């Protein structure tokens, strides 16, 4: 009888310990999944859930605040997920908080990350739908990488061609690298350049010394450099000069055109300037004119003394005298 009682106690203890262990394990697991705490249901709509599963964690600011309760496909581009979020933590999640689906580590399961919203907005309540943001999926990344690797392959093949050409000494770059004469020339050029630079430096130093010796402020150069009025005047002069030179140039062009026109046409001037016989004719004509005018003068003198024309000439003489007298009085 005593033995049976002892058995009972031991078996009872064994059963209680075992059962407690099971209950504790279930409680801890349930607690992790927020089964025993008060939850609020929050919804988010995604186009792609990237392998999210029921029971995956929901994180807010890095803390596990709930689990994914339901994943439902509404249409081909709309998947609604229901998140069971702990009521206490839900008070800190604002209505404009953004839900994203991410991976828990490199090889971890998927998680829903809720990014905090603005502080001045109302906290979420059960049944709210929060905005979402879809990150680039691994497939998209791989397709981009694929394009990039294709381009890299093309680029490397081109680079290979270029390096081959360079190695065989084709082109300017190849010659530069492979041709030893070019290298020598470059060395010579560099030496010359060095000497030139040295000379230029010396020149600059000497110029500097000379300029420093000049009394800049009182010299014409100083006035030119420092006086703004003179500067303006010089500017005006230069602009006027520019204008004048333009006018001169225009006039020259016109003259050139005129001269060329004269040369080209059969005008009297061209004839006068080019014909060599004409001056001789003119000379003889002039001599004849001279003789004729002498004779005309004699005739005119005779005409003055003629009876018919004498009164006219006398009258003319009187008028001239009168005019001379008037002008004399006016001057006085």
């Amino acid at each position, binding site marked *: 009888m005593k033995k*049976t009682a002892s058995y009972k106690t*031991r078996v009872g203890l*064994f059963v209680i310990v075992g059962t407690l*262990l099971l209950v504790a*394990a*279930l409680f801890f697991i349930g607690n*992790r999944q927020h089964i025993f705490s008060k939850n609020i249901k929050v919804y988010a709509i995604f186009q792609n859930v990237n392998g999210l599963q*029921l029971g995956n964690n929901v994180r807010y600011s890095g803390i596990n605040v709930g689990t994914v309760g339901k994943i439902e496909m509404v249409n081909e581009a709309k998947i609604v997920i229901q998140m069971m979020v702990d009521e206490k933590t839900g008070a800190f999640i604002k209505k404009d908080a953004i839900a994203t689906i991410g991976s828990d580590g490199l090889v971890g399961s998927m998680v829903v990350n809720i990014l905090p919203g603005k502080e001045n907005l109302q906290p979420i309540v059960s049944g709210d739908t929060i905005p979402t943001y879809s990150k680039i999926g691994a497939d998209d990344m791989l397709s981009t990488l694929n394009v990039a690797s294709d381009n890299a392959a093309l680029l490397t093949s081109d680079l290979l061609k270029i390096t081959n050409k360079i190695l065989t000494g084709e082109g300017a770059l190849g010659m530069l690298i492979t041709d030893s004469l070019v290298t020598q020339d470059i060395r010579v050029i560099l030496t010359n350049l060095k000497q030139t630079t040295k000379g230029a430096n010396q020149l600059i130093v000497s110029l500097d010394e000379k300029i420093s010796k000049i009394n800049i402020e009182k010299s014409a150069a100083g006035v030119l450099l420092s006086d703004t009025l003179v500067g303006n005047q010089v500017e005006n002069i230069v602009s006027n000069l520019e204008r004048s030179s333009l006018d001169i140039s225009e006039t020259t062009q016109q003259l050139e055109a005129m001269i060329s026109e004269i040369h080209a046409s059969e005008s009297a001037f061209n004839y006068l300037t080019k014909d060599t016989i004409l001056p001789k004719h003119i000379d003889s004509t002039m001599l004849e004119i001279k003789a004729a005018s002498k004779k005309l003068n004699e005739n005119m003198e005779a005409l003055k003394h003629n009876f018919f024309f004498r009164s006219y000439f006398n009258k003319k003489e009187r008028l001239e005298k009168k005019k001379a007298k008037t002008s004399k009085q006016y001057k006085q």
Partner: protein
Amino acid sequence: MSTSNTIVVKTKRFFEEVGDMTYFAIRFLKEVFTAPFEWKELIRQCYQMGNRSFLLVSVTGFILGLVFTLQSRPTLLEFGAASWMPSMVSISIVREIGPVIIALICAGRIGSGIGAELGSMKVTEQIDAMEVSGTNPFKYLVVTRILATTLMLPLLIIMGDAIALLGSAIVENLKGEVSYLLYFNKVFDALKFSDVIPATVKSFFFGFAIGLVGCYKGYNCSKGTVGVGEASNAAVVYTSMLLFVIDFIAVFLTDIFYEV
């Protein structure tokens, strides 16, 4: 000709045995719900099978967790995934390794014990004597033992799992400088109801199978002292096979019911 005959005979005997065992199980299910109930014997058997097996299960579980962690550590370190050790160990032990290994150990200890005990009782005609004296030997000997294994094995498995996880935590604490709090935090982070509940449910079936096969083999023993040894041996062999069959069916059903 003789070979084919042997195969046919053996196959026939196997099917007969399976049918016989099914009848034995049906008889158990009938007897378990009908009075009188042998409570004292049931508690005694629970003590024998539960409490007396605890030390063996504890040591095995502890070494299991310890060795499993030590063996997995270098591979996980190679992949830079040492932080996944608690998750991996807990899921492996709770879902599969713990229940199967502990059930196999219990099959060796309890199943063979039941087979040998009932077999010797049968050989020495104690069971017949019980029948003559008016006691129902099936109820007294078989029902209590099968019930005891069915009830005790899940508890042994839960305790064995806990001790195995403790062994794993000790290794992680010593080698990886992971605190016990962090270790068990990660363990419960990784575990889900879908890991614990199917494992617990299948452990009831494991216990039932151990008790049923042990009792069947012992109760039907009939070749003198040689038969006792054979019954004891067959109980272990058949139970081990049956455990893997049950495990396969359990995993298959879990996969169907808990598939996302």
